[in-house]
């Protein structure tokens, strides 16, 4: 499932719902480069930690990218999340839990003249969820490498289970399929400035809600009760992003971006971000600020007036109205 609030790098693709989005953004990042070339040969080892909302997520990641000959680049990535959660959703309707999430990916980039063809596969698994995603992309340089266009497609197959008292429920098995199409163009405007425009359509079909989360409804002046969520079985989203980068004479760079998101559930999202990179000798310092604002899904409510109030019911805070400053 695509989320409206997304700004990810290949190293931050930890949440199962964002795997495919990260892939598309990886293509988008490639489209910011002024010419079509193979990625650099490199290896990275990372430790990451998220801490907030009574949830901690931490773990290692390893990425290796190697060329085979002069026209083929192969990349492999391993990413692990150790999750400890007592989030606000868990507090009100479940028990704290710990789990491990593993993700493996393999991808290849083939350089053919002024084109790069990309192909890859990702598997993400945890105790109650397995996601398999395959993707394909192509980028092409035009007009003396001043313009680069790119297209991408991905397909995801998700198996969703449910743990009851720490044991996988054998009677619960749901599926969700997702497809994403993306297109982008980047243009070198001056010797110091590059501009990129990307557009993405994502369709999800199947089991789109959490098997654990409940909604609440009023039963009296001071009383309430819970019932399971009820979601539509399809969701289609559109997102467009515009990003500009300006290179300054002292090898610094400033970056400005905006992204608009909307989907068939009524969610509307706006993201704006500003970044600056500054080299000092062997050091490179960077800072950025980002603001995100979203309007809620049509069927979202914090509190329903009665049981079975509508066909679709949700109390997922990611479908609520909120803003996020990073």
């Amino acid at each position, binding site marked *: 499932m695509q989320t409206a609030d997304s700004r990810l790098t290949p190293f931050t693709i930890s949440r199962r719902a964002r795997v495919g989005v990260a892939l598309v953004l990886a293509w988008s990042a490639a489209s910011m480069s002024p010419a079509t070339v193979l990625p650099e040969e*490199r290896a990275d080892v*990372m430790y990451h930690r998220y801490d907030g909302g009574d949830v901690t997520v931490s773990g290692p990641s390893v990425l290796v990218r190697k060329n085979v000959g002069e026209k083929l680049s192969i990349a492999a990535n391993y990413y692990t999340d150790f999750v400890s959660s007592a989030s606000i959703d868990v507090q009100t309707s479940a028990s704290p839990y710990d789990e491990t999430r593993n993700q493996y990916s393999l991808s290849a980039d083939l350089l053919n003249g002024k084109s790069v063809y990309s192909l890859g596969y990702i598997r993400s698994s945890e105790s109650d969820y397995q996601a398999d995603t395959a993707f394909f992309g192509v980028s092409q340089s035009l007009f003396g490498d001043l313009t680069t266009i790119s297209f991408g497609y991905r397909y995801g197959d998700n198996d969703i289970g449910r743990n009851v008292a720490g044991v996988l429920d054998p009677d619960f098995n749901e599926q969700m399929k997702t497809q994403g199409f993306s297109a982008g163009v980047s243009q070198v405007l001056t010797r110091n400035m590059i501009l990129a425009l990307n557009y993405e359509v994502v369709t999800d079909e199947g089991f789109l809600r959490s098997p654990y989360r409940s909604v609440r409804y009023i039963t009296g002046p001071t009383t309430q009760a819970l019932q399971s969520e009820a979601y539509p079985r399809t969701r289609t989203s559109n997102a467009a992003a515009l990003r500009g980068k300006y290179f300054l004479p002292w090898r610094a760079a400033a970056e400005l971006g905006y992204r608009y998101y909307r989907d068939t559930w009524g969610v509307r999202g706006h993201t704006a971000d500003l970044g600056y990179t500054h080299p000092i000798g062997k050091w490179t*310092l960077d800072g950025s600020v980002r603001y995100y604002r979203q309007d809620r899904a049509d069927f979202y409510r914090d509190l329903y007036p009665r049981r079975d109030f509508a066909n679709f019911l949700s109390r997922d805070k990611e479908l*609520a109205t909120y*803003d*996020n400053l*990073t």
Partner: protein
Amino acid sequence: MGASYDFRIPRMAWIDRSSASIRYSFLTVNYDDFRDASQSLGKFGVLPDEPLAPGTEPLYKLDASVLQIFFSIWF
């Protein structure tokens, strides 16, 4: 914000360059229509001493930090 430092590794000529990096982000999320229901429903099945009426709980707010430390080589 982030910082990275480029350096050479002695006696490993096959490595063109290497760097160590650290990135830290702080984020705050403010919800307009998602309330802290633990103040009425309780936490993990234990009711609060003075539960609030549903719909009168304070709006939920989330603060979080993200830390990334990584080591990179180019070859």
